[in-house]
Every structure is written in structure tokens, then in C-alpha cells.
């Protein structure tokens, strides 16, 4: 299943300042008994959005209806730490996010996000601090140029692992890429 191509995103930000937002926050483990990847948006940040008896929380930073135009999640450092559950980017995408911006994003989450068309953007500390102060700001993220700009003048560049970037821009299929090296894999196996 190939994600939609990602070239340029123009949206607004939703800010959660906390550090170390782990994948149990993004989608609690009790929702992991699913055997499909669809429809997980309703479980995204569930315990931040709903009370113990499933009533919407008034003070939640996450609208009940979904991300709407706030398709860019700006979060504190070490976002996505913890478990390897790919349900985390599945849930964020289904909720309506297309990119996550932080000063650092946990390795496995980053890898999982890229494979699903949720762009993880790691920016310098100064840009990060400025974005945390501007919830709702209009933002443009350009994957071709690897730049991030806001309506009020923040401009930063970022890097994305080149292969993952190509997969997102051009729709390259990573599994197809490995399968195309079948002969080398067979050779490796024969030598082992």
C-alpha cells in the first residue's frame, strides 16, 4: 500500500509542548487489537481527547472532529518515543495530520511515519522554540526544497533520508526496491 505522494503542504499548526510524547499517548495499547490499519483516527491521542467515561475533554488540544486545517503537529522533543507500533502514524494520519515537527523525533516512529506519508520534520532548536510559541500559524512544508516557512517569517531547512524522500516525492515502493534485488539476496543466502 503506497502512501499519497507528498510534495508541498500548506496548512496550520497544532502545538503540544510536552517532551517525550510516547506512542502510548499517540494511540493507547488497548486499541492495538485491530487487524487492519484503517479507522484509527478515532483512537489518536484518545486519553488526551476523552475522559475515563469516553466524554470529550473540554481542555484537550486535539479537536474531537479531527485535525481539520491544522495538519501540522508541532510537539516537544523526543516525539514518538517508546513502542514500535506503526499504529501511531496510522492513527495520526487518519486523524488528519500530514506532518510532525519537533527538535528530535524518535527513530522507529520516524521510520514508520516516512513509510506512510506522515512527514517527520526535525528542525533546529531556535525554529522549534519559535514554532512552539505560535499555535495555529499558517505553515508551508516543501519536501522538494526541504524547507519550512510560516506566514510570519520563520524559515528553516530540514533533511529527510534521501531514499524515503524519493519514495514520498516520486511514489517509489520500498518493498519493490528490495524485491528488485532478489538475485543479490539469493546470492547472499547461497554463500551463507
Amino acid at each position: 500500500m503506497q502512501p499519497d505522494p507528498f510534495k508541498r503542504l500548506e496548512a496550520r499548526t497544532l502545538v503540544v509542548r510536552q517532551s517525550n510524547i510516547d506512542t502510548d499517548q499517540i494511540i493507547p495499547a488497548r486499541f492495538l487489537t485491530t487487524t487492519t490499519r484503517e479507522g484509527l483516527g478515532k483512537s489518536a491521542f484518545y486519553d488526551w481527547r476523552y475522559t475515563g467515561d469516553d466524554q470529550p475533554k473540554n481542555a484537550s488540544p486535539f479537536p474531537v472532529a479531527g485535525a481539520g486545517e491544522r495538519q501540522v503537529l508541532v510537539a516537544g522533543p523526543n516525539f514518538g518515543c517508546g513502542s514500535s507500533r506503526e499504529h501511531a502514524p496510522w492513527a495520526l494520519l487518519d486523524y488528519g495530520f500530514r506532518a510532525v515537527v519537533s527538535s528530535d523525533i524518535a527513530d522507529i516512529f520516524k521510520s514508520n511515519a516516512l513509510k506512510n506519508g506522515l512527514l517527520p520534520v526535525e528542525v533546529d532548536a531556535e525554529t522549534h522554540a519559535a514554532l512552539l510559541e505560535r499555535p495555529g500559524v499558517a505553515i508551508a512544508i516543501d519536501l522538494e526544497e526541504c524547507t519550512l516557512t510560516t506566514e510570519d517569517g520563520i524559515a528553516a531547512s530540514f533533511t529527510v533520508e534521501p531514499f524515503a524522500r524519493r519514495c514520498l516525492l516520486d511514489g517509489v515502493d520500498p518493498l519493490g526496491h528490495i524485491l528488485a534485488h532478489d538475485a543479490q539476496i539469493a546470492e547472499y543466502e547461497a554463500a551463507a
Partner: protein
Amino acid sequence: MARSLFDKLWDAHVVVPESEDSPAILFIDLHLVHEVTSPQAFAVLEERGLSVRRPDLTQATLDHSTPTLPAGADGRLPYATEAAEKQVHQLESNCAKYGIDLLGLDDARRGIVHVIGPEMGLTQPGKTIVCGDSHTSTHGAFGALAFGIGTTEVGHVLATQCVLQRKPKSMRITFEGALSPGVGAKDMALAMIAQIGADGGQGYAVEFAGEAVQALSMEGRMTLCNMAIEAGARVGMVAPDETTFAYLEGRERAPQGEDWEAAVARWRELPSDPDASFDTEVTVDASAIRPMITYGVSPDAAAPVTGNAPAPANDSEREAAEYMRFVAERPFAEAKVDRVFIGSCTNSRLSDLREAAEVMRGRTVAEGVTALIVPGSEAIRQQAEAEGLDAVFTRAGAEWRLPGCSMCIAMNGDQGQPGELVVSTSNRNFVGRQGKGVRTVLAGPATAAACAIAGHIADPSEYMSTEARDAA
């Protein structure tokens, strides 16, 4: 050129080297599979008409969604939800369809994925090992290159036996000096994470070295490598040595006879060359480590159990402190404990259970405290019962359960109640990890057992015999 253990493991598994454009294609020697992170990967095989390339290098088990209570009078297992039961059946049918060996619910070898791999002798030095589970770093204890992957990558490995990876940077964490009596591998892990931070290992493959690491049993090394991911490192590893070989010799899936001798000779070549270089070096003073607990909602918020709760220094810490309800500058020991969980891929092995039993023997779990002891595998359960450990626990008033992940991830129905303080030998103290509103304190088995007996946060040394402290 001098190479590290990590360099040697990496080099030996490169099918196609990495270039500026593309990551390396890395061959995987062992793929471990469980019910939670695999269904969508098998679905991709189905969609694309692919088969499993190497079922012989794939081992499946059931652990996350499985009940730890036996079947009821109606013969039915008490699954938390229908979805959980369906997920278990889904793995059964996927394994049957693709010819993968599954340790089913009635298999005497079934257990937590990171417990059974080593136990069966599947986990070996020199292997690359992956699983759709972040605690796959556990297997690095054997001098293997082991790391957690996402479900998309599980699909890649099923179809091709390979993953796409950029080589991470390398870090060596050297524990200098010897541990004090009564201090164990979990305390080392928590002290290390407190020192470098929950993202201190991000982007690195970590080798744990030094006198205190060499002195650890395989179980202890597994606990330490298991927690590497809690410092942000996908990979944790320890160089194989006589302790490693002694653990593996004679195990079901370990090499036998002449093959064994040849394998050991190969494995002896794996440790880092004396002048190997690392991108980052960290030292931890092992002699200064005390029994540790966590007091926040990230594993790096860890401190000696005998100390006081620190005052929060920023917004995140203030929020964590409000959630955990430890009183700043007051002793941890003043905090009342509601529930204790001893188990998980971090601390559910026989040595962990012996350590907990040593503290609980002849004592009683404090009134109002629920204690749950969940062995990591069927094999451990049987060994523990043969030694009478189950009786020690049940006489103390603790519950002795069937193997599984249980309260570590709390998706099988085993969980705490809102507001409860749970002392847990697992690996994550995240908000709500062990049930909505549950306040989790991470600790080693002796500390967790001491807390169960005391009914509040407690120093295990007050409950351990001198011999037991020396052995821990």
C-alpha cells in the same frame, strides 16, 4: 582496520551496501513475530501475492493479547475483548497459511517473544534479529544485532528476509567498577538512562561494556539491552563471552556437536577489536549505582529508591510530578503502593523470580496491595514451580499467572485502576501505559517485591539476606 562488534555484525549482513541514494539492504537471520504488529504485514503479502521467503528463519509466538488466567469452566480463555481473541486466531491462521512455526497457546515453549528466542537457543551471537517490537534490543545481550521494526518492515522481512537500513552511529557505554551488593541489571539500566536521557541514545547502536557488564548473567545482560530503547537506542548489545556460550550450549535450536565447536570459534571473533573506535563514548560509575526507581512519566526520571522526590525543574516535569503525586523533597518511601507487577520482557526470567521470591519468602503482601507475578514463558513457569517459587508467592498473597506481556502493556485485561500507584518491573512508566490514570513506578524485581511487602516504596536491601544481595 579495527572494527567494533557492531561493525562486524553489520558488515556480515550487507546484501547491497548503502549509497547516498539508498539505504543498505540488510539480511535478517531471525524474524520473530507476534500477534499485535503482524496482521497488517501478512495482509500486504496477500494483497501483492507474495509468499514468506524464509519461514525457516521465522518464529512466531503469542504474548501480547493473551490472557494470563486459565480457561474457565466453559473451557474458554478469558480474553479481554473479542478483538484480542480474533487477533490471536489471525496469527494462528497466518502462520498455518505461510508455513511459519508458531508457539501456540498449548505449546510448552510459548512465552514472551524476547524470552523464548534466547530460551530456545534461536538467539545467537552474530545474528541479525528483528521483530515488530521495540524491545527486540533484548537479544543484543548475546552479541547479536537486534532491533525493533514497524509493521511495514515486518512485511518487508516476511517477503524478502531483508530490511532497508542506514547504518546508525555507534556508542559505547562503559560501566566502570563493580556493582554493590543488592544492585542489579535493572538498576544499571535506570541509572544509565537517567544519566544520558530518554533520547540520549537516539540514532545510535549501543555496546554495553565494562567490568560490571561482563559480570552480569545472561538474564542481567538481557535486562540491560532490553532497556536500551528507553534511552532512545534501537540497538543495545554486549560482546559474547564464556557466559554467553554456557547459556546457549545444549539449547534446542543452538548448534550441536561439531557445529557447536565451529560456532563458538566464530563467535569468539565477534568482540570489538581493542582499538575499535566509537562515535560516542559514555562512562557510568557502576559502583555508585543504588537500587533505583522512576518517579516521573519517562524512564529517565529515575533516582535511588532511598532518596527524596526531586522538585520539578520545568513544565514537563511539573506536569509529570502532578500526575505521579510524589511530594517534592519528601522521601519516596512515604508513597503508598496499590499494586505490584513482576514480569515483562525486562524482568520475568527465572533469576528475576528468584530475586523477588527471596524478598517475599515467609512474608505477606501488605494489606490493600495486589501483587501479580507473571513468568516470561511456559518454561520459566515450570522451572519456577519445580523450585516452589509459585508457592512462595501465593503464600505471601501474590497472584501467580500464566506467561505473557500482561500488565507491561496492559492490552490483555491485566491492568491497574485509575489513580493507583503501581510498582512494576517492566520498562515504561508512560502515562496510562498500565491502565488509564495509572501511576507507574519502574523498579527491579527485589525492589518491586519489597514494595509489595511494605505497602509503600521500599528499599529492597532491608528485605534481602546477605547471600541474596551478593547474588543479585
